[in-house]
């Protein structure tokens, strides 16, 4: 069973030449089949967590460990992490002009699976996944993310999730910028992947809205660079009712201590 272990993770970014610590000791274990929601206010570092695990060069890990099935993720290159079974659905997917979706998906699937998928079955696989996400087949001829609407970008991310079948999926604010219909379609895509029971999901969100469609097993409140409270799905309801004020208070106090 695949397990992602995050142990006392500290991460900094370069802020005008000075390292600025964003993650201040994150501990979390995500097992295959589980869904963890990470909720927190803007600027709490929850997206940094996702990007650090995926290996974005902007972030410097200054302490701690990330292990996937006991393997040291932090010593791997970005593409090695993906081939090891990590997937990051991005909040702002990047445009790659001149590279068609079809070419991109096939290149990616070839890299992840270690061999080129057989053309016949591949086309069927892509077409059926696109149909389920209510994507026009003409979509595959467009350049990756170029001129995509917000909803199209998110569908495209979830399409990749379905095709690449990772062990651990990190979904960074997949719900942001989606109308209700798109949110439902995208959530159904995530749920299809979850139903396989073969993926562990880390769902990062600011709002509880997506949790109506994707039921988490665990909810973690993220504030000031670490998890400050963990609970079951019921914790989301508390956040819905009470907001993050209680935790942002903690953040302010923490900063005072840190500065002392």
């Amino acid at each position: 069973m695949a397990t992602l272990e995050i142990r006392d993770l500290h991460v900094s970014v370069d802020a005008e030449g000075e390292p600025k610590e964003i993650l201040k000791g994150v501990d979390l274990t995500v097992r295959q089949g589980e869904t963890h929601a990470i909720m927190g206010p803007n600027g709490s570092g929850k997206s940094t967590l996702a990007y650090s695990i995926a290996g974005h060069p902007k972030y410097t890990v200054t302490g701690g460990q990330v292990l996937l099935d006991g393997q040291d993720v932090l010593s791997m290159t970005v593409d090695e992490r993906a081939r090891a079974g990590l997937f990051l659905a991005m909040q702002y997917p990047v445009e790659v002009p001149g590279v068609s979706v079809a070419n991109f998906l096939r290149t990616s699937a070839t890299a992840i699976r270690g061999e080129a998928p057989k053309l016949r079955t591949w086309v069927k696989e892509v077409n059926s996944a696109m149909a389920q996400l209510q994507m026009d087949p003409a979509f595959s001829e467009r350049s990756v993310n170029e001129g995509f609407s917000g909803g199209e970008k998110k569908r495209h991310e979830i399409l990749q999730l379905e095709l690449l079948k990772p062990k651990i999926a990190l979904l960074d604010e997949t719900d942001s910028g989606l109308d209700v219909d798109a949110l439902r379609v995208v959530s159904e895509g995530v749920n299809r992947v979850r139903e396989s029971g073969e993926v562990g999901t880390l769902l990062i969100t600011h709002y509880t809205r997506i949790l109506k469609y994707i039921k988490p097993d665990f909810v973690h409140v993220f504030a000031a660079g670490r998890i400050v409270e963990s609970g079951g799905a019921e914790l989301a309801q508390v956040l819905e009712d009470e907001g993050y004020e209680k935790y942002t208070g903690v953040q302010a106090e923490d900063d005072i201590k840190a500065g002392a």
Partner: protein
Amino acid sequence: MSQPEQSKGATTAAAVSVAGPGAGAPLAGPGTGRTHSEVLASRGERPTSYDPADFAALTGREEDWRFTPLKRIGKLHQGVPADGTDKVELSLPEGVTAEQVGHDDPRTAKAGAPIDLVAALAYAAVEQATVITVAKESVLTEPVRVDVHGEGGTAYAHLVFDVKPFAEAVIVLAHTGTGVRAANVDLIVGDGAKVTFVSVQDWERDAVHLAQQNTLVGRDATVKSVNVTFGGDLVRITPNVRYTAPGGDAELLGLYFADDGQHLEHRLFADHSVPNCRSRATYKGALQGDAAHTVWVGDVLIRAAAEGTDTYELNRNLLLTDGARADSVPNLEIETGEIVGAGHASATGRFDDEQLFYLQARGIPEDEARRLVVRGFFADVVRRIGVPDLEQALMTKVEQELAR
């Protein structure tokens, strides 16, 4: 306000100057007491002539030569005599004829006069121009091909493609081999004709090639003029577009890939002198290796009479390694406000780390991700050509460059 509302004479990098109609500009050239090294008020005032004597000797400090290392152009600016030969193969589908004519034939002076000394010297050095004619209303199913293989030495050429009204043609002019070459290439696009013209500079590494390309666009005619420059030690192409009547549409496309020490230069000029014409320029270049140098200059002039003009030019350069240099200079001069649109964009940058991260985060190894981005960068231009066989051949060339 310290800046005057009307700026006259701005031809600096990325300048947009709006001059009043008929704004006076001093003429330059012999007899005027002015030299070409002075910045002229308007691109439209730059002299053109078939006679080399009308051009001053080059110093390299002239506005239009300042990027070109004259030491490396094989004395083409000093009237070096021809001593080399080309192997030329013509592939002419039905409806297309070729003939050799002297400069007394008016077709050799129809598309435009030389804009600089090297083009004038090349014009003067050629006794017989090759005129290739696509008959009126003929719709070609196969491309016209002119394959030029340089066999060393210095040589001059003048090619005229005369596409008669309402004809439709794809014309490919391909350069391989080596030598020092200066050429004038004219494309006359008759009224209502549709032409795709592609000039491929696939020279060996030591070749020198300077060419002026003149395109004359007829009434309601459509032309795509494409330059593909990968080879050579120094290549300098100057495409010029003029319109004879309203309704002309010119799309100028280009891709270039400079390796170690190569100098690849493209200087475009779209001269809008009649109403309701359109021009689009999209040039993309990649550079890799030490002292790889590319130059792109895009001059667009919208004269006072050219109301309803629609123009946009774009240049993008991708620096794949340190030590390479890309110069990019769009110039837009507008003498009438009654236009549909006029704009330009220029950007030169390194690999986008975010693109690489995105592709790598999908399991694609870094070197493959880089190739994918460069392929995509060029595919974006290539797919606008609209001739599938050609597009595929060009993407194969891109692959070969990337494999170097």
